[in-house]
C-alpha cells in the first residue's frame, strides 16, 4: 500500500547527471555560496564550508550569526534561497526532505532540547536506534536483544540509566539535553550536528561531553556549535567563526581567538 510516493518524487539516489569537482566529491559536507533570508533579513550570506569525512569541526560566532540556521539548512528544516549543499560528495540535500536527509545519515541535536515527552526515556532512545523505519517494518518489529543492549549502552553513556522508566517530559532541562545527545548517538549517523551540547551542564559534565564527542569523532564526522570556549579548547579541533551569516575566521582555536575581529564581535575584551 505504501510504496513511498515521496521517494519516487524526491530522488534519494545521487544526482548523476552533474559532474562534480574533486573538492566536492571528497568532502562529506560541502556548502557553497549558500544564502537564505527571512523577510528581507539575510541570516546566511554566501556561506561556504567544507567538512571532510571523519572531521570534527567547532563552530562559534556571535548570537544571531547564523549557526543554527546553517544547521537547519543541512537538516532540511530550512531551504536555502541559493547555493549548494552537497553531502558525501554526491547528494544534493536541498532537494530532499528532513526524513530523507536523516536516513542518509545526518543526525542532530537541537539547540532547544526536543524529546518525546509522553514516552519513557528508554523508548525515546529505542526509537532513535538504527533499525527499520518503514511502517510495516515497525509494525511487526519486536525489540531484539541487540537493540536492547544498544539502548542500555547509550543510557549508560548519558547517565540516565536510573531514569529509564520515567517520562521524558518529567526530566529537568539538563537531563533532556543529555537524553537528546543519547538519541543522537543511538541514531549512529555519519554526520552529527550538535547545537550547544554543553548549555546547562556543569563544568564537569561539559568536560565529559567533550570527551564523548572526541570519542565519537574517531569514527564519525561531527559539527559542533558552542559558546563555551573551555569546551572548544578541550575539543582541540579546527574552529570556524561565523558572523552575519558568513565565515569570519577559520583555523585553530588560538588563531581564531586572537583574531581582532573575532575578539571585537564575539569574545569581548
Amino acid at each position, binding site marked *: *500500500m*505504501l510504496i*513511498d*510516493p*515521496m521517494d519516487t518524487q524526491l530522488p534519494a539516489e545521487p544526482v548523476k547527471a552533474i559532474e562534480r569537482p574533486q573538492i566536492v566529491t571528497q568532502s562529506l559536507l560541502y556548502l557553497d555560496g549558500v544564502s537564505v533570508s527571512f523577510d528581507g533579513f539575510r541570516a546566511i550570506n554566501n556561506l561556504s564550508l567544507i567538512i571532510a569525512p571523519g572531521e570534527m569541526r567547532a563552530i562559534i560566532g556571535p548570537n544571531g550569526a547564523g549557526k543554527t540556521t546553517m544547521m537547519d539548512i543541512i*537538516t532540511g*528544516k530550512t531551504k536555502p534561497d541559493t547555493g549548494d549543499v552537497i553531502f558525501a560528495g554526491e547528494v544534493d540535500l536541498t532537494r530532499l*526532505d*528532513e*526524513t530523507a536527509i*536523516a*536516513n542518509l545519515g545526518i*543526525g*542532530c541535536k537541537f539547540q532547544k532540547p*526536543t*524529546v*518525546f*515527552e*509522553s*514516552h519513557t526515556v528508554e*523508548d525515546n532512545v*529505542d*526509537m*532513535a536506534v538504527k533499525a527499520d*523505519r*518503514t*511502517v510495516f517494518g*515497525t*509494525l*511487526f*518489529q*519486536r*525489540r531484539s536483544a541487540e537493540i536492547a543492549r544498544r539502548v542500555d549502552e547509550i543510557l549508560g553513556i548519558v547517565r540516565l540509566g536510573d531514569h529509564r522508566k520515567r517520562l521524558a517530559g518529567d526530566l529537568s532541562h539538563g537531563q533532556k539535553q543529555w537524553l537528546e545527545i543519547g*538519541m543522537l548517538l543511538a*541514531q549512529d549517523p555519519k554526520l552529527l550536528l550538535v547545537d550547544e551540547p554543553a548549555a546547562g551542564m556543569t563544568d564537569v559534565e561539559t568536560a565529559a561531553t567533550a570527551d564523548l564527542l572526541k570519542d565519537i569523532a574517531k569514527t564519525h564526522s561531527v559539527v559542533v556549535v558552542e559558546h563555551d570556549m573551555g569546551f572548544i579548547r578541550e575539543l582541540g579541533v579546527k574552529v570556524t567563526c561565523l558572523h552575519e551569516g558568513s565565515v569570519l575566521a577559520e583555523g585553530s582555536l588560538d588563531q581564531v581567538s586572537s583574531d581582532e575581529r573575532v575578539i571585537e564581535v564575539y569574545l569581548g575584551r
Partner: protein
Amino acid sequence: MMLTRFLLEKIDRTGWIFLVLLALAAVMVPVLNLAVPPGSPFHVSNTAVSLWGKYMTYALLALAVDLVWGYCGILSLGHGAFFALGGYAMGMYLMRQIGPRGVYSHPILPDFMVFLNWKELPLTWWGFSSFPYALFMVALVPGLLAFVFGWFAFRSRVTGVYLSIITQALTYALMLAFFRNDMGFGGNNGLTDFKDILGFNIQSQTTRAVLFSLSVVALMIGYLLARAIVTSKAGKILIAVRDAEARTRFLGYRVEHFKLFVWTVSAVMAGIAGALYVPQVGIINPSEFSPANSIETIVWVAVGGRGTLVGAALGAGIVNFAKSWFTGAFPQGWLFALGGLFIVVTLFLPKGILGTFTDWWKRRGETREPPAGKAVGQPAE
C-alpha cells in the same frame, strides 16, 4: 501463528476484561433473546438487541476515531463520512436485494429511482447485488477516500485544526452531495425499507441476533487490531508524531506514511461499523454525513477517555445509552442532562471515564502516596 501473536501479545488487563465481556455478550445476548421466553426476568428484549447492536457499531466507530485522535493526534471531524460511506455501500446491497418487491414492482430499479423517473441503474450501483462485491466496497470506498485525502493532506503537512477543518469540509461536502437527488443515492430520504440480507429476513429476530453478534465480533477484532497497532513500535512512533512531529522526521521516520497508514485503517474500521449499522437501524441517509455527527463521535471518545481504546468504546456506549434513555425519560429537557454530562466529564474527569478510573485504580495500589491534603500552595495559572 504470527498473526495471533501480533494481535494478542500486548493485551493488558483492562483489555482482557473488555474482550471477555464482549465475548460473553456475543454469545449470551442472542441466547437470552431467542431461547429464554419473554416473561422470564433473564429475557433480553428484541428492542434491546437492536439497540445494543447499534451501540456496538458506534463503539467500533469510536475506536476508529480514538486510533487516529488518541494516538496520532489527528482530530478528525469527518469520520462520520467513512461510517456513512460504509453504510451506503451496505445500504445499496440491501436495496438491490429488494428486487421486484418494491412498491412499483420494478424488476431492477429501487423505488426512489422509479418515481424520480430514472430509466436505468446508474453505474455506481452496478455489482451491488452481489454480497461479496458490496463487502469489498464497504472497505474499499472509505479506505480509498481516506487514502487519497490523507495522501494529499499529510504530504502537504496539513496538521492541527487545519486538518480537522478540512475533514469537516469533506464530510460536509459529501453530505450536500448525497442530499442531491441527482446523485442517485436516494437524496434526503436515503435508502430504507430493506427486506432481507443474504436471503434472511432482516426483520426476523434471529437475523437481528446474528447481526448483533457480528457487531460484537467486529468490535472485538477492531479492538485487537487497534491495540496491536498502538502497542507495536509503529504505535510508539504515532505517539511521537503526536507529541513532536518534526522531531520524528529528523529521526528518519516518514511521518506521512505512518499517518496515512492509521488514517486509512481507521477509515476502513469506520466503514465496517457503518455497514453493520445500516441493517440494524434500517435506514441510511445523508444526515449521517452531517458534521455534527462526527463531532458527537469525538465527544464519545473524550467522555470515555482519549487514547485508551477501551474507553472510547465505553464512551460510545455510555453516551448513546444516556441519549436513548434521556430522550425517552425527559424528552423536554434531555439536552440539559446530556450537555451537563459533557461539561461535568471534562471538568471532573479530565482523562475521561476510563482514564480517571484506571488512574484511581493505580493510585489505590500505591501506598507511598503523599497525603493529598498536604498541598498548601495553589497552582495559579
